Each structure stands twice: as C-alpha cells, then as structure tokens.
C-alpha cells in the first residue's frame, strides 16, 4: 500500500467539520471519484468528524491518497483522546445514541465507505479508519 500524499487536519470546532467536507471534496475530485462516490465519502467524513468533536472532545483527521497497485483510494483516519467507546458493537448499531442524535453517525458512515475499522479504549480514545476506492 503506497501513500502518495497525506495531510493532517484538526477537528476542534463545527467550522472544522465544514472545512473537512470541503477538503474531502477536493481530494476525491483529484482522485477522480464519481459524484456519488464523492458525496458518500464527504457525508461519511462529516459524520465521523462530528463524532470526533462531540464524543471525543475534538481530535484530528489524517487524509491519505493511497494506491494498492491497481486502484487508488482515499483513506481517512479520525483520532481522538476522548472517553472511548465501551461497547463498539452497540455503538455500531443503527439508532444507538448516547447524545440526542439519530444514532446514524457510525452505522451510517460504515455503509458509505468500502473499508471501515474502529479501535477504541475506554479512557484513552477512539481511532476510526475509513477507505473508499476509486
């Protein structure tokens, strides 16, 4: 897996979520994603960035343009040092929410990407890696 380009963007306020959406649009356009694929990746990024902000107390996202030899893709790694998720399986269920949201952030964004990985430790933080291939 070759990383062609990378960038780290902080997630500290709700305007950072807007900035991240615009950046994903830029990266996905550069990777020549179709409009539907771009829209899915931007929406997933918006959900995950909001989770990082609201549940993780802020953090950062790593953008990577990657290639596996045959395909190019966009990989996003969201990381926070927040309280962590005690029960990941429950958190990934549609409709599960600890705040007053709809509980679609994690479960919904997982459906919008090709690869989804989550690691979380209570008291240490959460890391979510999503990839969408061209």
């Amino acid at each position, binding site marked *: 897996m070759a990383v062609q380009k990378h960038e780290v963007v902080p997630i500290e306020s709700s305007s950072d979520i807007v900035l991240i959406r615009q950046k994903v649009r830029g990266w996905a356009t550069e990777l020549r994603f179709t409009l539907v694929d771009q829209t899915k990746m931007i929406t997933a990024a918006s959900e995950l960035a909001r989770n990082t902000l609201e549940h993780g107390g802020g953090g950062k996202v790593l953008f990577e343009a990657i290639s596996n030899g045959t395909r190019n893709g966009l990989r996003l790694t969201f990381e926070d040092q927040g309280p962590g998720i005690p029960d990941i399986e429950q958190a990934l269920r549609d409709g599960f929410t600890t705040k007053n949201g709809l509980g679609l952030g994690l*479960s919904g964004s997982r459906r919008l990407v090709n690869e989804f990985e989550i690691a979380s430790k209570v008291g240490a933080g959460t890391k979510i890696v999503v990839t969408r291939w061209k």
Partner: protein
Amino acid sequence: MERIPILRMGNFLLVTIQVDMHDKLAMTLQDDLTKAIADFDSRGVLIDISTLEIVDSFIGRMLANIAAMSRVLDAETVLVGMQPAVAITLVELGMSLPGVRTALNVESGMELLQESVGSFHMSMNDGSAET
C-alpha cells in the same frame, strides 16, 4: 451573526440554502423558520436545497425537525431540488426523511404547497400550473 435569509411570499416562506452549513447555522435556521411561521401566520414553507452538495444526518435531522415543527404550527413544508447523489447517499446513510414532502424543483414545490393550503390561495396561481 451569519444567517440564512427567509423570504416571505404571501402565505409562504421561501428558503434557499446556498452555503455549506455548519451545525450552528443549521440550528439557527430551524429556530428562525419556526419563529417566522408563527410571526407571519405562514401556511407553507418551501426549502430549496438544489445547491447543497451533501446532507448528513445532522442537516437531515434539522430538515425533518422543520417539517415536524411547521406541521404542529399548521404549515406544510416542501423540500425541493435535492441532487440525485445526495438522495442516494442520504438513503444509504439510513435517513429517508419520512414525513418530509419533497418535489423535484421550486415550481412543482410551489404547486404542492398551493394545493395543500387550499382553494383560497389558488388565487395566487394564474391557472397555468393546474393540470
């Protein structure tokens, strides 16, 4: 403070969302619209999202809230102009916006509002839109 303008046209309110909204702006719009419905005694709200490039669960929830709140205030909401890529993504995300009326464009959205509000307001219509 940044705000999305709400236009008043007779008994209806028109909103065109043309910026990539941050969460607070979406909440402000929800509050402003609800207040405007009550202040102007509006019977319908038309929200044009044709320039919105994404609708995530937060914006989707805001739109559903507006529709629900306006219904409680005796006004109809019609959402118009959603881009196909946005619709595909929104449904895959798990939001099908139940309870929100939609139309493909502003014109058919206005027709829908006029129909639901009744014959009294049909006087606003020149008749050409009737089928």
